[in-house]
């Protein structure tokens, strides 16, 4: 199929002055809603949908797409500065990013995230331009058994997060898995652990868990640490990564782009898995893995690049197969339908202007986002100079508004407070929230796809081994576990690394 001709024609759509403006509007709005955790791109696009009725379909989708990938840029900011991850794919960033901010390197963290996002996004758009139909087909070979294997691998990888011990991470992950079972059973819809409450019928929202454990938990912990004293805000440092930072993070950005693009194509959980895999890859490749969890720049660069690349490649199933890969894509799907365009395998042929116009506008949008980031990071890092007495209540306020906007629920605002207390207690005993939150996200995927698989296999467990992708993935899981166990055994004779290294509450530098 000739790609170059129509792809170039798409630029004439993307460069129409009105469309440039819609693109700018979209990415700016996206960045802003990304900054407010909770109010995600999905809600924003839903709200803005009615006002796009009167504009051209291509312009409308250009703007809405801009909101989506713009939000990925913005989401990093609160993760790094306030430890408030608004989306599952930025949880990983909150770990090392926040530590970098505490060390006075917020500017470097945000800067490398912006550069990484730009590169990851651009790589993924190139992939989208040239490989879309090819990769889309591959995504279909991922059925429930493959997702089961992927989720198992993911849960194994959460134990690599941060600097805690494997045992502590596994414990936190187990709590996460348990929490994921709250709500209606994904297969037969019976309610579990809901105590008859409708608010719990759909389970606990990710945003509630993440912002409670990370954001509120951190505030409570700091309150106790600094009781009676007026804590000094961390130094702000330079507003941009240094040459050395870039050298350290360069390879991570490259690897993150590829990981993000590939995993982002998978409907459901692609972006989260990609950030997790990128983090694990960086930690494994690092000469000194103990830096991770204490502010390693690769721990920000890899996942941030990957989640942005994944956000872009999640357009592939929508545009080439007509399958929305996540909640935001479902709304984009609706937006296209309301504009009289049916996303599906025939979209490229029937509406090449929309298909290529939107894709080409992403090149422009990503560039705009990078340009906007430069001055904005300088402003945002100043947030850190605000006294805790002001910043802490403000953070709570942002959290509460963010949580409320997810489904307009007061119950969720109470729930986030409960998770805040849990986060505080976990920090006291040295459990990290990262593994819990990510296991919580992957738990639903694991349970649903495992039970779907068992039905597909008519109850025969051996079915997993009989399929190439799930067989290989599960084989990899077994190898990783065995190798890790052997390594621990040989280590135990000298220094019992993992167990003795259980940190108490990590002392803030």
């Amino acid at each position: 199929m000739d790609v170059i001709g129509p792809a170039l024609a798409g630029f004439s759509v993307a460069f129409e002055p009105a469309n440039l403006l819609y693109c700018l509007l979209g990415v700016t709005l996206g960045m802003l809603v990304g900054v407010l955790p909770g109010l995600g791109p999905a809600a924003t696009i839903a709200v803005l949908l009615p006002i796009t009725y009167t504009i051209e379909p291509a312009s409308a989708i250009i703007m809405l797409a801009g909101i989506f990938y713009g939000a990925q840029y913005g989401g990093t900011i609160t993760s790094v500065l306030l430890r408030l991850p608004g989306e599952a794919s930025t949880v990983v960033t909150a770990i090392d990013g926040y530590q970098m901010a505490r060390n006075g390197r917020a500017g470097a963290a945000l800067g490398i995230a912006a550069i990484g996002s730009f590169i990851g996004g651009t790589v993924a758009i190139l992939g989208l331009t040239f490989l879309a139909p090819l990769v889309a087909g591959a995504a279909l070979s991922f059925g429930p058994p493959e997702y089961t294997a992927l989720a198992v691998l993911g849960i194994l990888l959460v134990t690599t997060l941060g600097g805690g011990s494997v045992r502590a991470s596994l414990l936190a992950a187990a709590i996460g898995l348990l929490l994921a079972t709250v709500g209606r059973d994904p297969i037969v819809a019976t309610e579990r652990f809901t105590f008859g409450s409708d608010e719990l019928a759909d389970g606990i929202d990710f945003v509630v868990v993440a912002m409670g454990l990370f954001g509120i938990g951190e505030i409570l912990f700091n309150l106790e640490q600094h009781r009676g004293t007026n804590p000094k805000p961390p130094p702000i440092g330079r507003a941009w990564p240094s040459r050395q930072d870039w050298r350290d993070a360069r390879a991570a950005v490259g690897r993150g782009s590829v990981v993000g693009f590939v995993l982002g194509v998978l409907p459901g959980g692609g972006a989260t898995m990609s950030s997790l895999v990128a983090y694990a890859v960086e930690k494994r490749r690092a000469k000194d893995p103990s830096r991770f969890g204490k502010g390693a720049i690769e721990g920000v660069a890899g996942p941030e690049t990957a989640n942005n690349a994944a956000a872009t490649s999640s357009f592939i199933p929508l545009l080439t197969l007509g399958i929305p890969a996540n909640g935001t894509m479902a709304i984009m799907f609706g937006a296209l339908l309301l504009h009289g365009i049916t996303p599906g395998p025939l979209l490229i042929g029937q509406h090449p202007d929309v298909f290529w116009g939107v894709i080409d506008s992403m090149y422009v949008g990503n560039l705009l986002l990078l340009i906007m980031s430069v001055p904005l990071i300088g402003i945002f890092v100043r947030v850190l100079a605000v006294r805790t007495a002001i910043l802490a209540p403000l953070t709570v306020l942002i959290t509460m508004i963010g949580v409320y906007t997810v489904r307009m629920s007061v119950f969720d605002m109470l729930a986030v407070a409960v998770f805040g207390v849990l986060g505080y207690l976990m920090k006291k005993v040295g459990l990290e929230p990262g593994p819990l939150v990510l296991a919580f996200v992957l738990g639903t995927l694991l349970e649903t796809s495992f039970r779907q698989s068992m039905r597909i296999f008519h109850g025969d467990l051996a079915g997993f081994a009989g399929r190439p992708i799930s067989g290989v993935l599960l084989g990899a899981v077994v190898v990783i576990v065995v190798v890790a166990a052997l390594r621990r055994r040989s280590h135990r004779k000298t220094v019992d690394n993992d167990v003795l290294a259980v940190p108490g509450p990590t002392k803030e530098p």
Partner: protein
Amino acid sequence: MHRRIVALLAGTAVALTACGGVQGGSAARDAAGFPTKPVELTVPSSAGGSSDLIGRAVARAVEKPLGTSVPVVNKPGANGAVGGKEVLGSSPDGHRLVMLFKSLMSITPLAVDDPDAIRFDQMTVVAPLTVEDYVLVVPAASPHRTVADLVGAGRLSYGTTGAGTGSQLAQALLFGAAKVDATDVPFDGGAPTITALLGSQVDAAVIQIAEAAPQVDAGALRPLAVFSEARIPFLKDVPTAKELGYDVVVDQRRFLAAPAGLAPEALATLQKAVATAQQDPRYTEFLEKNYISPWTDPADQVIPHLEAAKKGYADVIAASGITFKES
């Protein structure tokens, strides 16, 4: 251009305010002057689904005849129960409407126990809206060309769009009647079901016509049967289940409801506006394009229809001896 942007921003501001779930509790109630403020339409599912799309299409069309803005609020949860109960439990002044659907009232109760489910006496039906039909599809790569092929193939697994949906019911009844060893694999809605089907993860699935259409057009999915009373114009070569000897008629219908006790004047105003909206060419075009038919019964026939459907389904389930409720 500049004015368009200003309008856009103004629109954003209005929309954002609306999104905040404005609830005027103490607004002056003046039945004669209804509506006194925007009429909020709650869609009890997340944005992007078919409920949401139809809700938005209706809201867009009804604004003009009603003379006020009609913001759509998504309130997902418990398969529609959360949004439904919230609106039906609010003050019956006509400023809050909810879009409900047949499967929630007629099918879900047969599959899932919920002592707290929405009851008919909690609502005033404002207007019937739409009928959507279901189609049984197999992947293009499947060897099965007819329903007879499929049910003759021995053991199979089929995808459904969730427990307690029309998709599950239609297949449970069809495969139950055909006495096939078939396992249902529930997915979370239409999109994941189609994904699984395109990848041949399951042998067959029942989805709504609108969801199937682009894939059928592209030759990626093959329709085997529809579950309507009569054939569907878009799929005129596809037999109904009834023609094939299976008495399975399942569809999804949507309607607008307000809390019980809505003042007759407000109800009349709303009904008139919805009737006008249903003639709006943009609305009818939207329905046509998405293979949705208007539900043309009078409003007072909605509840009897839903009750009859529930009883009918319960009877067929009992007669066929299948287990629809699982644990």
